[in-house]
């Protein structure tokens, strides 16, 4: 056993100029106690990382600058709903509320595509915050040394980000619903009218959040550099559209339309029209693809992107 006093003196190692041999560590004397409480293990670790990811996506628990982009983008995503509820209020005062509500351009079924660009920008801005930081600063080593597996880490981070997107997709819809119902002269009747839309809204929101979130996180997982990840995410969401558009422009409408299945936003337009039973509004869709094609493309994107991300973190060196 190394005796406390000799160790204190010898702690200078090679140096023999022993200064005052006073206890250098005495100021740390207070406070270390053993922890006898519960250790909640892996599930608790995953849950904690999930909520941390959800909060971090909105810049909560981080500095003021980290909140700027999420606040602006969330505000923009809410703006159409706020505008339409405001207009509904005016219309109700003029006694044309129900007529306006039924003919307004912004409805449950059109909301997703109207804010899809904002959601894509949100992905490009915030997904690198989660995976990029951990890689850039070596924090992964600290996570992996704890009571979770590498795949747990990846899945908890993805789930947190997808949950954040889900909030962004659903919050305006809730606002829209409240506005339509509360401003209606017949509240119960309005609830009855809008209730059938709840299922499609939820399904489309989940699909959209999972696909856009999963793909964004898969790109972000591959680089510690924020700028590269942001550029990569934007490229992933725009280049397939451009390619499909070019092929369509060259006159190959069949191939071009099938190519649209490589574009996440177009796939989501497809699932939106299936869920709400509305025709596809875009000029792009020259032919009708089978419904199953859109659904299969969306699911393949979700599963594939998550698998790629998990695989990436199972191999990454720390």
């Amino acid at each position: 056993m190394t005796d406390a006093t000799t160790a204190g003196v010898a702690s200078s190692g090679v140096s023999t100029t022993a200064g005052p041999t006073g206890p250098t560590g005495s100021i740390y004397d207070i406070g270390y106690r053993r922890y006898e409480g519960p250790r909640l293990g892996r599930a608790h670790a995953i849950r904690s990382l999930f909520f941390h990811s959800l909060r971090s996506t909105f810049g909560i628990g981080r500095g003021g600058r980290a909140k700027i982009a999420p606040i602006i983008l969330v505000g923009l995503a809410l703006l159409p709903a706020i505008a339409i509820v405001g207009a509904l209020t005016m219309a109700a005062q003029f006694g044309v509320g129900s007529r306006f509500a039924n003919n307004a351009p912004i409805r449950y079924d059109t909301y997703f595509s109207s804010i899809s660009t904002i959601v894509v920008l949100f992905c490009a801005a915030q997904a690198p915050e989660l995976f990029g930081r951990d890689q850039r600063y070596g924090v992964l080593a600290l996570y992996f040394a704890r009571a979770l597996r590498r795949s747990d880490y990846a899945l908890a981070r993805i789930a947190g980000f997808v949950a954040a997107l889900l909030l962004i997709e659903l919050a305006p819809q809730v606002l829209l619903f409240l506005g339509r119902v509360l401003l209606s002269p017949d509240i119960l009747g309005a609830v009855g009218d809008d209730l059938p839309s709840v299922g499609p809204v939820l399904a489309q929101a989940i699909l959209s959040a999972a696909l856009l979130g999963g793909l964004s996180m898969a790109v972000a997982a591959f680089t510690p550099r924020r700028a590269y990840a942001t550029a990569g995410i934007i490229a992933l969401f725009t280049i397939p559209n451009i390619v499909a558009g070019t092929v369509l422009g060259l006159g190959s409408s069949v191939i071009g339309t099938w190519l649209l299945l490589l574009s996440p936003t177009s796939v989501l337009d497809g699932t939106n029209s299936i869920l709400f039973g509305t025709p596809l509004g875009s000029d792009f869709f020259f032919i009708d693809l089978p419904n199953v094609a859109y659904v299969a493309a969306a699911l393949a994107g979700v599963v594939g992107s998550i698998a790629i991300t998990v695989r990436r973190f199972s191999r990454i060196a720390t």
Partner: protein
Amino acid sequence: MALISLRNLTKRYGGAITALDGLTVDIDPGIVGLVGSNGAGKSTLLKILLGLVEPTSGDATVLDLDVRTRGTDIRQFVGYMPEHDCLPPDASATDIVSHLALISGLPRTAARERTAEVLRHVGLYEERYRAIGGYSTGMKQRVKLAQALVHDPRLLLLDEPTNGLDPAGRDEMLELVRRTGTEFGMAVIVASHLLGEIEAVCTYLVAIEGGRLLRSAPLGDFIEQTGTLAVEVDEGSTALAERLTADGLAVVVDGRAVLVAISDGRPYDLVRDAVAELGLPLVRIEQRRHRLEDLFRDVPPTEIAAARAPTGEVAPGPPVSAAPTAPGDDR
């Protein structure tokens, strides 16, 4: 029951690089120094103990748990301080340590309390609310130690804890490590290539080189070992070596010096007579203190073999010729 038990542990990367080669050793609680030059396999060993790197062959248990199958269970009771930077600069020490406490399985209230306690223990006070980006290297190292301690592990693995610190900061960090190990009774493994540090804080030493066990023994055994007599002559070192060999001594020529093993008997008279009879220009005779550094010098293989023999805990295989410390990739 050993805290850590390694049996023929081997790790190869891609079939070509051998990081660990048939390591067999039992490690008991205490402050254990894991010493070796860069690339000796220290970091690889720590990662295997954490269940983060799968051994190529052989077995390893930590707290009686198999590293291959019980990694998450092991990590719940082990704290790890990595060698490299691992802290996000925009978070405060309180933020990151309490977050990591949650990930270690502590409930929220306990995580907050333990964070405050452990940051105080490592000597961070008001500054713990500031962003880590503005911290000195010494403060960052303390935060790294704090996050390894926050869940009150049974075993603490420290990889080069004094990396990048100035002498004063180094002494403070070592004092912290020593206090943590002795006063709080936590088992600590300190990996380091700086042997002076190991001497200062450890009670037991495991020396590895080229992925092989060089020696495993209480610290005292390393230092008290009688060593080598260096006989330096201006010329004629070869002749002297031949003469001394003829007298039955184990010698090695090292440039102008002849190194004589003095583990058995006292060869001083023989050396004196040999030098006088050969009429060599003697510069000095000195007994080299067998300090830890000698383990990694180009010392005579016979001496290494002599040093290894009494421990009885040597790895199977041919005697290690203590190679000069070659810089290498510290995997």
